[in-house]
């Protein structure tokens, strides 16, 4: 088994975006120093463990600033093997990704950055509660490249309030023009507990718009040389995110920080989403554990691997690892889906059919045990 990935969650933001249901808090900057120390303390649990990839996500990691980020990385090195990473990614938001910060992260070894662009239409950004402008976003992309970060990704949202086909098209063309090497495209979903759920905007594009736009975006990106390698992810050849690929291949990883998820030794767990308790004592913070039987585990990996549109799922390989008897039920379900043309089948290899990408949940419901 290859070395695990390391995820570090930075649960701070300047302000909370109206659609966001991830664990992050706004206006708690005074807690950042204490938080960095707490992450280092949590890492002691994994003393001596070596990692293949690193992903610092959030929240807004760029809110840490260069100095604190440097302190975090240095301190972690005394416990964890993170000196031979094949990929190190950091997320950044345009308003806090200035030249000083980007230079510093490049020097720390981050050669991949994921910028929360979401849209290059200022109206849309404002309505979604983003605190940056489209100009700031494009600037951040330019600066990142000029600092020597060679894999720059942007997040884009389909279905923002007020969004039109034209504005989305425009966002995409500008991003391609700026030389991005990787683009993640998500459809907006209104999640419980968010501002949008409490007070839904009246100019929210519907499912039909999202579906059409998703297909159009996919087409534009593919024509520009991007590979649609995962349901929501597009990359130029060789620029796929290795850290995330590890998730989708059922690989192992450790997550540090509140709400961070881990997968190791067949066990999945997730730290409690409680920043104050975490800072107080990261070792004592509660977690949800999820241990499942082998058939559920195997089906879960199958569900994840089917997200990889090009690579797909090799059921033969799965059977060799999990057991031939245990895989019979899964293969029956996969063949059934292939019969309904929701999966494409070649020997024991399965891929999501193009017509089912947008309705993949429907497929996954039948894949899981």
């Amino acid at each position: 088994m290859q070395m695990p990935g390391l995820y570090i969650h930075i649960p701070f933001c300047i302000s909370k975006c109206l659609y966001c249901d991830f664990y992050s808090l706004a206006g708690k900057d005074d807690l950042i120093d204490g938080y960095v120390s707490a992450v280092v303390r949590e890492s002691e649990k994994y003393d001596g463990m070596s990692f293949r990839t690193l992903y610092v996500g959030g929240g807004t990691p760029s809110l840490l600033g260069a100095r604190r980020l440097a302190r975090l990385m240095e301190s972690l090195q005394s416990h964890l093997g993170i000196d031979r990473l094949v990929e190190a990614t950091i997320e950044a938001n345009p308003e806090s990704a200035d030249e000083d910060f980007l230079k510093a992260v490049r020097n720390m070894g981050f050669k991949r950055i994921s910028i929360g662009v979401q849209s290059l239409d200022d109206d849309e950004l404002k309505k979604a509660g983003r605190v940056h402008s489209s100009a700031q976003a494009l600037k951040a992309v330019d600066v990142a490249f000029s600092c020597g970060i060679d894999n720059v990704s942007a997040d884009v949202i389909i279905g923002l309030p007020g969004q039109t086909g034209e504005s989305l098209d425009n966002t995409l063309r500008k991003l391609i023009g700026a030389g991005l090497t990787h683009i993640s495209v998500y459809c907006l979903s209104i999640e419980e507990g968010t501002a949008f759920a409490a007070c839904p905007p009246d100019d929210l594009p519907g499912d039909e718009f999202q579906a059409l736009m998703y297909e159009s975006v996919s087409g534009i990106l593919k024509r520009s040389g991007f590979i649609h390698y995962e349901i929501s992810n597009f990359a130029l050849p060789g620029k796929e995110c290795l850290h995330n690929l590890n998730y989708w291949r059922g690989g192992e990883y450790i997550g540090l920080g509140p709400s961070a998820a881990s997968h190791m030794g067949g066990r999945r767990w997730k730290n409690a989403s409680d920043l104050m308790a975490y800072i107080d004592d990261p070792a004592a913070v509660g977690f949800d554990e999820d241990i499942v039987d082998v058939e559920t585990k195997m089906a879960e990996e199958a569900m994840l691997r089917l997200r990889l549109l090009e690579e797909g799922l090799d059921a033969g390989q799965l059977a060799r690892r999990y057991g031939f008897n245990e895989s019979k039920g899964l293969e029956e379900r996969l063949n059934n889906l292939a019969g309904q043309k929701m999966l494409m089948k070649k020997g024991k290899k399965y891929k999501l059919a193009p017509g089912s990408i947008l309705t993949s949940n429907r497929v996954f419901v039948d894949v899981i045990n």
Partner: protein
Amino acid sequence: MNNIRNFCIIAHIDHGKSTLADRILELTGLIRKASMEQMLDSMDLERERGITIKAKSVRIPYKSASGDEFILNLIDTPGHVDFNYEVSRSLMACEGAVLLVDASQGVEAQTIANANLALDAGLKIIPVINKIDLPNAMVDDCSLQLYSMLGLHIEDILHVSAKEGTGVLELLEAIVDRVPPPQGNASDPLKCLIFDSFYDAYRGVIPHLRVFTGMLKAGDKIMVKSTEKVFEVEEVGYFSLGLVQAAGLSAGDVGYTVALIRNAGEIHVGDTVVSAEHPEVPAIPGFRMSQPMVYCGVYPIITSDYAKLGAALEKFKLNDSSVTFEKETSAALGYGYRMGFLGLLHMEIALERLKREYEQDIIATMPSVIYKVATNNGEIQMLDNPSKFPPEGQIDHIEEPMIRARVIVPTGFVGPCMELAEAKRGSLVGIEHPDDKRATLVYDLPLAEMITDFYDRLKSVSRGYASMDYEMNGYRAADLVKVDILVNNGVVDALSYISPKEGASIKGRALIYKLSKVIPRHQFKIPLQAAIGSQVIARADIFPMRKDVIAKCYGGDITRKRKLLEKQKEGKKKMKMVGFVEVPQEAFLSLMKIEE
């Protein structure tokens, strides 16, 4: 025998029958106050719905104010019109009835229906106005209603708050004073009435008996009159909080017997039990087998569960002998059963019990009544399933079962209630005004309208004030047609229904619209059509689902994703595959919930 009093409590639903029973048990020391549960309603479902489904009884030792010791046998009766026959047989086991009226509601349709049954059975009635503690209690109005609508004497009426215990001791005294002791000679040959039964997995069917004459003890051989089956009595006893074994039961007593009766079909409520040595003792008049009035198809969601469902139905029938079932095949749903019920409420309760207590994942089809279909060749068929109807060209005419409904409603709501009854093809038989506040409407209505949404609609147009009771009232010819529903271009026989020809297309459109909302979107377009023969009367399409969630599979929290999918899968398991279309239970009952 002079110190026995056999009585029941009869009331309209929610007038406080179970609370009064609890208070009586409490005041006589049989249960402690702390137990808040209503004692006589022991099935979960009964408590949830606040109604009593299966009659039960309890023996209460009581020392009266005069210092004499009495045995009070409280016989619980079901309080809904579907169980009218069961009520009437429970009443026959008693000499007296406490007629309970909610002081804030007044006399309602079921109050009258139950009171009339009790009077017919020759019972002494003790009228009681309950809930006098409520701020909106109208004690005087209720007294007048009891007088004018039922001819009861105002000076005989007791005022009670079962909730607070007020007046309950006075009621117990009245039961002792006014209800006559049972008659009948213990030395005569045995004669008992079966007024209820329940099924015990180890001891078989345990009938509840009222002994009229003679004695019954372990070792006796008894004969059930209607079937002439003979059983040997293993045990007799009476009901306290559980079953309490006794040396014997004699004339006037109420109790149970264990006689290794394996099959609920061998014992029917209302039947007479006599000694096998005196089979000549005549049966108590009025026995009849309960007749199902409402039928529906019941199918396993997973086709291969068919055998399991059959076994569950066999067991269920041991517990509730008034349901019927037989094998049925549907082109759309596969193998299943046609079940018969006493009424709509009985159907709802039975299906819910099959799901909960018998753990069956089932789909029930739209309920149907029994139609009398006369074909051109002079044949008459009794059909309880619309999909079995002959082609329209072969039908000479159709008759449908009718009910006579008695609706009591405040005068302000008479208009809307009459409009509703007429929209439901009712014909007015008469209007009575028992007092200046309320009217009694008597209507003849098709039973088919009754079993869809008539009662719910009646409640809604009268803001909950109307109450209703009904009895079966023969057959009437009607201009009816069979409407087929096509899903994805195929007829789903289980969705076929019988509709009045007039307004069939309006109803068809409403149903198609409703179906288009309850059948989930699929990967492909699903055309829906309603048709009479080959003529399409309504159509709509369910457009394909274009996308489901493409959110960030975030930070490696795979567990959350999997659990969401598992939840969705659970929902899917509750749907029936009809061809390639997943159809939820709701769709099959859509016709009952159409807003016209």
